[in-house]
C-alpha cells in the first residue's frame, strides 16, 4: 500500500490491520470497536473498507485522524488529490475537459475526481457500459453545482475534445458472462490508433492496476501519465499524513 511507503519515508512506521473482512468481521468485531482499539496504537488511521460510509463511521469512533483510502463504491479522496496533482503538473485545472471512461457506477476514484473537478468549472465527458453509468444522485449533485456533463456512447467522439482521459477498470464480475465482458472491454480499449487526432497536450490517467483498458503500446506515447500518477501517490500521501498528524 502506498500509504505505508509514504509513512516510511516520513520516518514513521505503520501497522497493517490487513483485510478488514479477513480480520475483524470474521471475528465478529465491529468496525467501531476495531477503530477504537487501533486509535490507541497509532497516530493516524488510513482505512479502506468494502462498505460505503465506513470511513465516516470510523472517524466518529476514532480518537486519531482518519484518512479515507476508499469506501466501497463510495469515494476515494486520497486518490483524487494525487490525480489533481498529476493533472496540475501538465496544465491549469480550470475549465478543462475531462473524460471519465469505464465503470463509473462502482468506480469510487471516478466519483471523487468528478466531485473535485466540479470546483474547477471543468466539463465532464462520460462513457460507460450500460448499467455502469455515474450514480444518478451523484450526477444530480454535480449538475446542481453547475457542472456540465456530456454523456457519450462512442469512444471515438471523445478523444479529440478532451484534455484529460481518465480510464478506470471495468471489472469482469459486473457482467453475466465472459463474452459480454470482452465485447465491452474491447470497445473501451485505448490504443495508439484511437489517439490519432488527440489534442497534443492530452494526458491519459488510470488509477492502476490496469488490465486490458490501455494497450501497452500507449505507454510509449507522450500522453501516457499513469505511471507518473502512481509515483505521485507517495509524496501526495506523505503530505496528507503530515497534514493530519501535525
Amino acid at each position, binding site marked *: 500500500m502506498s500509504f505505508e511507503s509514504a509513512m516510511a519515508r516520513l520516518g514513521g512506521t505503520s501497522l497493517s490491520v490487513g483485510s478488514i473482512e479477513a480480520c475483524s468481521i470474521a471475528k465478529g468485531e*465491529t*468496525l*467501531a470497536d476495531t477503530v477504537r482499539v487501533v486509535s490507541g496504537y497509532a497516530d493516524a488511521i488510513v482505512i479502506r*473498507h*468494502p*462498505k*460505503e*460510509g*465506513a470511513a*465516516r*463511521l470510523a472517524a*466518529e469512533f476514532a480518537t486519531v485522524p482518519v484518512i479515507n483510502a476508499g*469506501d*466501497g*463504491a*463510495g*469515494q476515494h479522496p486520497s486518490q483524487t488529490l494525487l490525480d489533481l496533482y498529476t493533472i496540475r503538473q501538465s496544465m491549469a485545472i480550470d475549465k478543462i475537459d475531462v473524460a471519465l471512461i469505464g465503470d463509473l457506477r462502482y468506480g469510487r476514484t471516478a466519483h471523487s475526481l468528478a466531485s473535485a473537478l466540479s470546483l474547477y468549472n471543468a466539463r465532464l465527458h462520460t462513457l460507460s457500459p450500460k448499467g455502469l453509468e455515474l450514480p444518478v*444522485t*451523484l450526477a*444530480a449533485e454535480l449538475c*446542481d453545482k453547475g457542472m456540465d456533463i456530456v454523456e457519450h456512447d462512442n469512444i471515438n467522439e471523445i478523444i479529440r475534445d478532451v484534455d484529460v482521459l481518465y480510464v478506470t477498470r471495468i471489472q469482469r464480475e459486473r457482467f453475466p458472462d465472459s463474452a459480454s465482458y470482452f465485447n465491452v472491454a474491447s470497445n473501451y480499449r485505448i490504443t495508439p490508433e484511437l489517439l490519432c487526432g488527440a489534442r497534443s497536450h492530452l494526458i491519459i490517467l488510470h488509477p492502476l492496476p490496469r488490465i486490458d483498458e490501455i494497450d501497452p503500446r500507449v505507454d510509449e506515447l507522450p500522453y501516457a501519465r499513469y505511471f507518473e500518477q502512481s509515483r505521485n501517490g507517495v509524496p501526495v500521501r506523505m503530505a496528507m499524513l503530515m497534514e493530519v498528524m501535525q
Partner: protein
Amino acid sequence: MKNSDAAENEGLLVRRIKNGTVIDHIDGGEALNVVKILGITGTTHEALSIATNVPSRNMGCKDIVKLTNRELSKEEVDRIALISPRATINIIRNYKVCEKKGVEIPKIIEGLVKCPNPGCISNTNEPIRSKFEVLPKGLHCHYCDWVITRDLTSHII
C-alpha cells in the same frame, strides 16, 4: 353550513379523548403513515382513533389521529412534518387542549429511516443509528451520501 357539517362529521367519527394527543390537519390520506412514523403497531395498548378524508375548511380534506394516554415528544412530532408539514399537535389533559404546537421539519433524523443502499455501513451490525440530513431534494444519508427523493414512508424502519 359547510363548517358545521365538517365539525359534526368529525364529532361522529372520532370521540373526544380525556388524555393524550390529537394530531390534526394531516394531509388527506397520510394518517396511516403518521401512525407508522410514530411506531404504533397492531400490538399497541393505547386506544387509537384514525379519521381519514374528513372535509376541512382550509385543506379540502384532512386526516386526524387521536392517541389516548400518550403525549408525543418534540422529536416524534417533528418527524410527522416530513410527510405532513401542515399538521398540528394538540396535547389533551382532562379533555382540555393544554398545548398546541405546529410541526417543524427537523434538520437531522436519526434511527427513523433505513438507508436503501445495501452497501451502506449503516446497514451492518455497527453500533450506530441511521442518520439522514433533511435537504430540499430529499433525505441525504450521513454515511454513504445516498439521497432518498421519494416514497419516504416505505423506508421507515
